[in-house]
């Protein structure tokens, strides 16, 4: 019976059944055939899974991201970053990383960032001499950083499941996010220097100042979110809601690129995206109930404890598991399904749950662009028709770079914990 409970969901997942349905079906089968409890528990666990004020920040951040990543705002951020790094070798590729990092502080969606940044920089990158695989790789991989740079949907989900503070997770993600960007930048500069690629524009303070002024409205949003949360003015959920209003006002009044009709359409899009994520949260609520009642996490802990692994070995094993999982499933599903299983193991090994949240997020950010199921790869494919072979070849070096950064994030907990005073 237990074997059937494991095998059946895997078969359904492989057959392309929706993830939420697989979780819900497994839990339903368990409740009816194994646990023998009144099946109304299914409804209760599902409702409890989504009825949470903390999760309300997900629709808010998705809506704000939809509003702020319109063409005008992203283009101004690109101009700013190009003005700052223009003199360096590989400046346009660096600008891709820089823009994705800043867009990450505005929107929580890595796939949307791939599309936004890709649309602006894919052609210019190739015109300035980068091969198609390289241009594709740098765009898809930089957008992965958005999963780690707060505000991050993945961290909100982890915070709710692991019962740790979301503001702390956001703050803990800042340095690791910048480290990922730094590793990417170093690789790009080295690559450009070897290929003898020069800069695009000369360094000029006046140019930077102009670009900065032009992008001030866009940069205002992360400022409001951060000052609001850490100044103790708003809760993270409230800050996300205020960010929506700010984004709507800036788009409507300053950049004048959306009207009331478009606002309603974007609001609806944000709600549909929310439903796509949160229906998995609901099903994961039932799945978590099943795991807990069946004592699976406790058995896993016992099994791992029996191997007498040290903390660094546990982290190594978990990293490999997460990297593989990230290749096949999206960060939302991975966090919701794996956190209840892995967290007890991690706690038992004496690893800080905040640090572990960051390790998990970085892992899954790499999963955004690892073949075969990295979502950003599909975005590049659907937008620009990049052939699969070139796509895979393009991201390979960046996967190596990001895994190097992941190793640092994993084995230097201080990087994640120093800002939260841990």
């Amino acid at each position, binding site marked *: 019976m237990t074997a059937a409970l494991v095998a059946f969901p895997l078969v*359904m997942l*492989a*057959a*392309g*059944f*929706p*993830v*939420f*349905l697989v979780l*819900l*079906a497994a839990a*339903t089968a368990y409740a009816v055939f194994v646990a023998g409890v009144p*099946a*109304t528990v*299914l*409804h*209760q666990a*599902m*409702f409890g899974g*989504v*009825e*949470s004020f903390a*999760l*309300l920040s997900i*629709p*808010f951040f998705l*809506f704000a991201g*939809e509003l702020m990543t*319109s*063409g*005008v705002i992203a283009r101004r951020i690109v101009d700013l970053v190009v003005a700052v790094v223009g003199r360096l070798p590989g400046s346009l590729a660096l600008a891709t990383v820089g823009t994705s990092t800043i867009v990450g502080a505005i929107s929580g969606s890595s*796939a*949307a960032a791939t*599309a*936004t940044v890709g649309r602006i920089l894919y052609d210019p990158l190739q015109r300035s001499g980068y091969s198609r695989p390289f241009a594709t790789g740098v765009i898809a991989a930089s957008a992965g950083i958005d999963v780690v740079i707060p505000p991050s949907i993945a961290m909100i989900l982890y915070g709710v499941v692991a019962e740790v503070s979301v503001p702390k997770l956001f703050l803990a993600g800042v340095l690791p996010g910048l480290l990922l960007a730094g590793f990417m930048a170093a690789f790009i500069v080295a690559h450009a220097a070897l290929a003898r690629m020069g800069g695009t524009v000369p360094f000029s303070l006046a140019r930077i100042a102009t670009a900065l002024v032009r992008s001030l409205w866009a940069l205002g949003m992360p400022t409001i979110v951060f000052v609001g949360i850490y100044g103790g003015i*708003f809760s993270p959920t*409230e800050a996300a*809601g*205020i960010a929506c209003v700010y984004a709507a006002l800036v788009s409507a009044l300053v950049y004048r*690129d959306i009207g009331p009709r478009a*606002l*309603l*359409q*974007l*609001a*609806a*899009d944000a*709600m*549909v*995206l*929310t*439903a*796509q994520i*949160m*229906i998995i949260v*609901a099903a994961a609520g039932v799945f978590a109930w099943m795991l807990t009642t069946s004592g699976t996490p406790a058995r896993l802990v016992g099994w791992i404890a029996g191997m007498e692994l040290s903390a660094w070995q546990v982290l190594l094993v978990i990293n490999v598991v997460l990297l593989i999982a990230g290749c*096949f499933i999206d960060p939302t599903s991975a966090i919701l399904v794996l956190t209840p299983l892995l967290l007890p193991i991690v706690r038992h090994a004496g690893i800080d749950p905040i640090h572990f949240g960051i390790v998990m997020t970085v892992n899954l950010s790499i999963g955004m662009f690892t073949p075969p*199921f990295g979502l950003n790869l599909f*975005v590049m494919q659907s*937008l620009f028709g990049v052939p699969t072979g070139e796509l895979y070849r393009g991201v390979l070096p960046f996967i190596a770079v990001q895994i190097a950064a992941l190793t640092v994030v994993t084995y230097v907990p201080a990087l994640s914990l120093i800002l939260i005073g841990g």
Partner: protein
Amino acid sequence: MDTSPAPLVEARGDVRLPGAARAVERALVLLLGVLMLLIVGLNVANVAGRYLLSMPVPAADEIMTFAMVWGVFLGAAVVTLRGTHLTMDLIVGLLPPAARRAAEVAASLALIGVLGFVALQSLEYIDVIGGIGLTSMAAGLPMAWVHAAIPIGFGLMMVAALLRLFGRRA
């Protein structure tokens, strides 16, 4: 307007649906937009009320959360109709078209069966809390109305799955 394309929200367009279904979808999407704007508005009113008038909107947190719950289950019906649920389609993508179609049919039937069963449990639960007149803590709303989001959303998802199952292949 150059909005981010958000590839996940776009329909795959492989199924042609009757005009009536499209009209219901449009109405549902409109409702979702209004819900989203309502939640955002309530949040601002709450924060502004607290700081400017030192009078937060009563029960705002609770009402916003309930509106989101409704948005999620109604929105899930739109996601089902568009065929854009998150899946792991690596292995099924390698299969020949006939096998892929068979897997799709199996998924639709499983969705209808499982959601139908769970929706019945929901109705039973709602019957109980409706019977004892359970209300929410802050706003005093009947909790049966809030919980009804699940059976109603699941019902719509089942209809959406049926429409896709029998929709003409484009």
